[in-house]
């Protein structure tokens, strides 16, 4: 049974092997960087019967692993029914969660229903995590969720967004995860998407990768020694000297590297109202190919340009630095939603380690300056301008203390959120 790790063969037909499915946008957290701006359920979310039909369609299309997300997936009425249905179809069921509501009872119910793994989002040590999650106590709740799931027999993982607020915590986080029995750790950049687009101070500058990627590589070496699988998400790369180390689950056995955006090739995202995208993080406004209430999954996957873009595009889509890059053939401009979130279209992505090193060699760096604000919808983005400046130019935005960057508030606002600039 093939899983998420694919051998590359020329005749492999695109299929949604790895699916991330937002069951509901309802959430018990209100995270400051949430790309989907989760909190309240979408107005017209799929019912349980509809969701179970989606499971059947996913099985027919060759899905091998489905990650249930939200909001919080466990707040969806039919959450356990969906887990059981996935397991019955032989599809590995996984949940990514903030962990606030994961009790020992729920962990056992999830295990009994057939859930395979749980990945808890933990972005920093207590102070910084609580600031990012906008809730005091959320760090402790996340650790408790890890323990409940592990004790229930679930494989536990963690996923961490890296940004200017929390990158100082990477090393202690690693040690904490080891202590907590975390088997797999996914690290990725906070992209200015959704609420993170409202807090551009939070996101890294491209030249921050010069320091962060080698630190992650050092942690990866330690992870290998401690039998933890540590992998970068799709928006963290690309093609620096540490590329194969970072990208390979077992670099002693196989040397992987970034193979380009797999959205709509082997990866797919579903929003809770049935909207289908090539990747869960892609911008809703630009990348929804169809809705499962209107169409079956297969024609959406096979025929819509929003799902096909990464299958049909050529190198001519690349522009700016990426069009000139020696790694342009396999890379294709890195992560699609990230490029779109920065410059408003794919094909040129300043969040690139090779690119940052290229400019560093010339005594330069690229800095992003906010240009247009995000409209305030789930999975939306603003845009940025890129300026090239001296590598040793004064730092316009030094790392900020957690309390300075994000104010914790428990009062949700309706509609567009106000910018929270310190």
């Amino acid at each position, binding site marked *: *049974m093939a899983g998420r790790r694919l051998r590359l063969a020329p005749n492999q037909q695109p299929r949604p092997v790895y699916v991330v499915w937002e069951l509901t946008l309802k959430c018990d957290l209100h995270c400051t960087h949430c790309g989907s701006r989760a909190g309240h359920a979408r107005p017209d979310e799929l019912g349980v019967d509809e969701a179970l039909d989606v499971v059947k369609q996913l099985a027919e299309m060759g899905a091998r692993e489905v990650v249930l997300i939200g909001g919080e997936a466990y707040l969806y009425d039919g959450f356990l029914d969906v887990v059981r249905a996935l397991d019955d179809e032989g599809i590995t069921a996984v949940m990514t969660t903030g962990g606030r509501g994961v009790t020992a009872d729920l962990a056992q119910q999830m295990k009994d229903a057939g859930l395979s793994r749980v990945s808890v989002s933990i972005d920093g040590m207590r102070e910084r995590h609580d600031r990012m999650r906008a809730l005091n106590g959320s760090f402790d709740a996340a650790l408790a969720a890890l323990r409940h799931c592990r004790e229930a027999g679930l494989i536990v993982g963690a996923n961490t967004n890296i940004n200017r607020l929390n990158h100082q915590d990477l090393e202690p986080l690693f040690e904490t995860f080891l202590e907590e029995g975390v088997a*797999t750790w996914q690290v990725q950049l906070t992209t200015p998407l959704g609420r993170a687009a409202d807090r551009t101070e939070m996101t890294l500058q491209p030249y921050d990768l010069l320091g962060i990627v080698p630190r992650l590589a050092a942690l990866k070496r330690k992870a290998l020694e401690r039998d933890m699988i540590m992998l970068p998400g799709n928006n963290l790369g690309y093609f620096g*000297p540490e590329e194969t180390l970072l990208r390979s689950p077992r670099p002693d056995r196989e040397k992987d590297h970034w193979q380009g955006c797999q959205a709509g090739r082997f990866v797919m995202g579903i929003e809770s109202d049935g909207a289908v995208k090539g990747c869960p993080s892609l911008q809703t406004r630009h990348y929804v190919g169809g809705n499962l209430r209107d169409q079956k999954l297969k024609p959406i996957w096979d025929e819509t340009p929003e799902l096909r873009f990464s299958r049909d595009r050529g190198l001519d889509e690349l522009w700016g630095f990426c069009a000139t890059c020696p790694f342009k053939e396999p890379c294709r401009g890195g992560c699609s939603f990230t490029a779109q979130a920065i410059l408003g279209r794919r094909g040129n992505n300043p969040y690139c380690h090779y690119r940052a090193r290229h400019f560093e060699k010339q005594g330069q760096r690229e800095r992003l300056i906010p240009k247009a604000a995000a409209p305030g919808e789930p999975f939306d983005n603003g845009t940025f301008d890129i300026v090239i400046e001296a590598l040793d130019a004064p730092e316009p935005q030094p790392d900020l203390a957690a309390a300075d960057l994000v104010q914790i508030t428990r009062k949700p606002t309706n509609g567009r959120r106000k910018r929270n600039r310190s």
Partner: protein
Amino acid sequence: MGSKSVMYFDSCHHCQGLIPADLSACPHCDHAVDHGSSSPGVTDVAKAVTKVAVAGAAAMTLMACYGGGYYGDDDGLGPIPEGKVSPNVACGVTETLAMELSPNGENHTAFVSGTTEFSYDAFSRCTGPTNPTPERIFTLDPGPVRGQAGTLTVLVEADRHTIWTADQCDDFTDQDAVCAGGNDGNRLELEVDSLRETTIAVESLAGGGEFQLQVVFEPGAVP
């Protein structure tokens, strides 16, 4: 994978970075490289590159920023479902591959050719010689070299196949299965203390089609 071409990188031993084939210097550390095989007169630095095949013989781990961390499945074929992979369980067909003394008398070999059909799943359907199936599973009969120590080489000469071996006919597990995959033929070399019946699977996951399976056993002390 559409029309995406197979690419190969060199890997710089100075900085471990990948080097595209059309560059004469490492783009990361600027050291000169020689993409050909090392030869007399080539500098140490130029020799210090290693071919890294990508795309064609490579694998990738599917990720998504809202996804869960990746775990296991790192053999490239995913977790093998218990109970589904025995040739007996699969459809009751077991093909025997008998070792014979090679014509030159230097070792023992076995050979078979066949066809598989492409499938996305490993060990998902029936095996057997009658029709193209996703897998062909053979039980290697050591014959006269049973119990001997030596090196067992399993080679599939074909495009887009994966081979597996396991000691036990009735149980492939993640622990005792050995896998090799790729597009341009696959080779497994196993050192054995005492050769016994060995299950060998030719798996179509990487593509399927015609294949030629050759097994060679060279007796000798195992270090």
